[in-house]
Structures are given as C-alpha cells and as structure tokens.
C-alpha cells in the first residue's frame, strides 16, 4: 500500500433515509497534504467530510455502505468512533467556542481524555494556541470568556482546541465562510503551516481559496466526485467539462 495514503475510500454510498446523498465515492487522500473539496451547494462535500470522522453517526436515519480505511484500518467496522475522533479533528463553519474561558476551551479535549495535571494542561494549551497562531493575542486573557473575542480569533481558538488533542488529520468544514477577509487569510496561512504535521481536508465554497492553499482538489456534483487530482491540474487543465464550467463560473 502506498505510504503516502492516509485515507482510502471505496464505493462509498450514503443515504439520508431514501435520499442518496453520496454516490459511489472512490478516492485516496494523501498524508501531509491539503485536500480541498469544492462544488456547488448541496453537492455532498460536507456530508462526505463528515463521514471521515463519523459525525454522520449522530444523525438519525443515515445509512452508509462501502468503506473508508485510515492507515489500512476500516474506520466503521474496525474502529471505535470516539477513538477515531481523537485522531481526526474537526473545525466547523461557524466559530463555536464553548461558553467558557479560552483556557478551558483548549483544555477541554485533553481533560476529556483524562489529563488532569495543571502543568501538563498549561503546556498543552500554550503549545496549541501557538500552533494556531493566536498565542500572542490571547496569552494575557486566557481566563477570559472565549466568546468575548472576535470571530476570526474565535475560529483560531477552535483550531487550537482541535490541535490540543493532537490529531493526525484536521477536517475543516468551510472554516472561513463566516469570517472577514483578513481573518480568512490568517487561517489560510495557518492551514499551510499545519500541513507540515497534519493531513488537512478542507471543504470550501471559495474556489480561489482552494486554488490558493490546496495540493489536491476534488470537485463534487450531486453526490458524486466528478474529478479529483492535483490542484494545479484541476484549475488549469480540467479533464471534465462540468469541472471546467464550475471553475469558470458558468454555474455554482
């Protein structure tokens, strides 16, 4: 098996009740790269993202067939969902820090997993906030409520919160769509930094963003992967007409 492959998705179908949201997805997602999912609203990219950390398990009436393996292990059949989520973290579209202090937000993950010693937690919190490029801005107000900072800062705190559990993969579901352009750029820079240590999958509505930061891009349409390949190739020499139409803005 290819050493650079993190996830291997085979014939993945997903049904919400009778509606088929994902159709026969096949792809390999690589380690240490930023993979972007693009496509118009409702095309299934967020749904697919959520299959990777089994967040769809929380929704009633969802049925999944096919398989996803991480490092060769089937994440549905041979892994516990809780365990999976400590290795695959997620950042959501709306910044949603918990209604507690910045410190407690970032320490939430480690505390859940049994880390109680203050010195250890202090170190984890500092390291995660530094990795999320927000340590300098909040180091003097760690005990303040996380809801009292700006949207862009809140999102970076959420990223720090995810980093605190030391995952291997970070899933980002339209992480900048609710933020201003400057915060957006900060987070894009952050993602580019982070790919040195993590595999990142980002769902985005913003094609330019995908073009700016991702190494590989998958174009989704009505639950199917229309085209998947190196970002360079998708944007400059798309093989599928529909891809080209989307990229050039003819629809979407």
């Amino acid at each position, binding site marked *: 098996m290819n050493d650079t492959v993190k996830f291997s998705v085979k014939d993945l179908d997903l049904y919400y009740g009778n509606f088929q949201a994902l159709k026969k997805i096949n792809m390999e997602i690589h380690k240490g790269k930023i993979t972007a999912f693009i496509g118009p609203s409702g095309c299934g990219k967020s749904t697919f993202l959520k299959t990777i950390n089994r967040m769809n398990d929380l929704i009633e009436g969802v049925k999944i067939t096919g398989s996803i393996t991480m490092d060769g292990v089937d994440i549905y059949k041979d892994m516990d969902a809780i365990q999976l989520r400590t290795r695959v973290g997620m950042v959501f579209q709306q910044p949603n820090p918990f209604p507690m202090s910045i410190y407690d937000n970032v320490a939430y993950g480690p505390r*859940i997993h049994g880390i109680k010693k203050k010195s250890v937690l202090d170190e984890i919190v500092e390291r995660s906030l530094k990795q999320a490029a927000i340590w300098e801005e909040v180091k003097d107000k760690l005990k303040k409520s996380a809801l009292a900072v700006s949207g862009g800062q809140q999102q970076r705190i959420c990223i720090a919160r995810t980093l605190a559990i030391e995952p291997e993969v970070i899933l980002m579901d339209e992480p900048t769509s609710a933020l201003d352009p400057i915060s957006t750029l900060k987070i894009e820079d952050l993602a580019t930094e982070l790919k040195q240590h993590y595999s990142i999958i980002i769902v985005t509505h913003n094609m330019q963003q995908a073009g700016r930061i991702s190494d590989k891009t998958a174009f989704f349409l009505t639950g199917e992967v229309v085209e998947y390949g190196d970002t360079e190739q998708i944007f400059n020499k798309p093989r599928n007409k529909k891809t080209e139409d989307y990229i050039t803005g003819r629809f979407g």
Partner: protein
Amino acid sequence: MEKSNWNKRKWSDGVLKGLIYLSTALTVAILAIIIGFILYKGIPGVNFNFLVRDWDSRTTFVNINKQAGEASTNPKYVASLGITLEDKDNAVYIKEIDSNSPVRNALNMKEQLYELKESDIITKVDKENTDGMTADEVAAFLTENSDAVIRLKVIRPGGGIKQMLISTIYIIILTLVIAGPIGISSAIYLNEYARPGRVLRLIRFAIQNLAGIPSIIYGLFGMLVFVQLAKMQYSILAGALTLSIMLLPTIISATEEALKEIPKVYRESSFGLGATKLQTIRRIILPGALPGILVAMILGIGRIVGESAALIWTAGTVAQIPISLVGGEAAAATLTTKMYWLIKETGDLSAASSIAVVLLILIIALNVASKLITRLFLRKKGTN
C-alpha cells in the same frame, strides 16, 4: 366609495374598546379585592410571635428558686423573680424578664430546664389559682410569699405557625431531593438519548397527562399507596413522594426547555473532540442548562408551598415538627393544610387569613426570586 358609516364605526369601536377596558378592570379589581380581603382579615394576626410560636399552647408547672431582688416602685414588678407582670384579656402574663432572673432557670416537674419566656401566662401560684386576679394582685401575692422555692402554673400561648413553617421547609427539601434528580435525568434521556418514534410520543403523552391530573387524585393515590399500603401512615415522606410525582412533569419540561436552549453545535464540537455523550452532558450541557433548571426548581417550590389537597391526605394536619420520615411522628401540617384544618374544624377564619397572608408573601418572594435568577443569567449570557 361611500364613507358615510364613520359615525357608526366610531360608536361600535368605542363600545368594544370600552368592553375590553372593562374586562381588564374587572380582572384587576377581582384580584385586588381577593388580596385586599385576605390582607384585611389576616394582617392583624401576623406579627413576630405568630411566626415563631408553637401552634398548641402548652401548660407546665415549674419550680423557681427565688432571688434576693431589688424592690421597685412598679407594683407589677416581682423582685424575687425578676419579672414584670401585665394584664391582658383577663389573664396575667409575664411582660419583661430581667437578664439575671431566676425564671430563666426554672425547672419543670421532670427537673428539666424550662425557661419561662415573655408572654407566658401565670394561672396558679403554689396552691392558689390566680384566675380573676389582676397583675398588681398577682405581683403582690408573689412578693408576699416567703418560700425559697415557688411553684407556678404557666401557660405558654400557642397560635403560632412555627411548626408549619418548618414542616413546609422539610417537605420542600424532601420533595426536591426526590423529584429533582429523577426529573432532570428523565429530561436528559428525552432530549439527548431518546429516538423519535412511537415510544417517545407515548412517553411524552403520558407526561403531559400526568401534568393535568387534579391534585386530589394524587392525594388519593398517595393515601392508598404510601400511607396505607406502604404503611408509612400520615408522614412527610408520604407527602413528599406524592408531591414528587405531581412535580415531575413540570421539572421534566422545564429542564427539557433549558436543554433545548443549548446550541447543537456545542454538542457537535464536543463529540468532534472525542467526548462521549455523558462527558458532553456533564461538562457542557448540564452546566449550561443550570439556570433554567434552577428556575424550574423555584417554580416547583412555589407549587409545593401552594399544594393542599395532596398533602392533607398524605401528611396529615397535625401541627408538629416531624422527627422521622415515616410513622406517627412524621405527620406534619404545612401552612396550607393547617389552613384547611382551621376552616374545617374551627371556623377560625382570622387565623386562616393570617396564614394566607404568610403564604402570599412566600409565593410572591419565590416569583421574584425566579425572575431575578432569570434576569441574572440572561445578563451573563448577554455579555458573552
């Protein structure tokens, strides 16, 4: 277009508006009359003594060692006992007690300390009945007496609601301790675990109906099952259990409302970090729902305080402070059940009204408390 019916419209508008205003005035007036009447009848009887005295009056014989006291010009003062007497309603009572008065060390017939208090009525000195004597006469009689130890027959007046106040508090605590955890856990199950479907709808339907059952039916149930079947007799435990069942629907729905307020994304983020459902509930959901749960508890207290039918048949109407949970010594009247007893057994509407005044004040205080808590936590949420 013809616009000629302006006068007609103006007139009918006016009449309807008048009716609306009248209805509101009527409602407010009725409320004012009710409260006004209760206050009028009841306030004269509400004072400090009313709140702290026992319900039943108590007659005791006590022995007091006289002291060598300083005489005074006051004919009502008894130097050897250090007390000042006074007349009221054909009875002679103790108006003032010196700080070093020997009556503070009076002993009853079992040689136990029975400290005499102000307002105690003296009805017998040694072998002499003092009925019909004035305070001056009793004081003189006591002063003339030359024995070292004197025996008095003393009546401690009752008519106070001390036992009912304490019993009410006991029942509140007991009921909340039982209904609280069960109600909150049920709400958590319904909101966080239960799957939508026929079973869930059945459960909700059952809860809704439970909320609508008249309280006297709960009283009947409580009497059959707790008092008789479980042999608890009239007891605060029987009362508390019955009230708990009554309160459950309220606590469950209020808690559920509070749980629903918590944004779904908090749960998602928590799961996304690898937390289990219970961890999420314990760390994020319950703390966030706490204000709502608190308000539910306070409203629950309001209902407990106001409940009568269910308690009459499970906790009884005896004015005593319960010293056990079940059995004869556990029966206890609350403010409401004593009111019922007063009206039914004695027709003493003034005393009943006085209790009613205390109840009204309690209920208003509880409502204010719940509003304050709601506002306090809304403000906290706002600054976030």
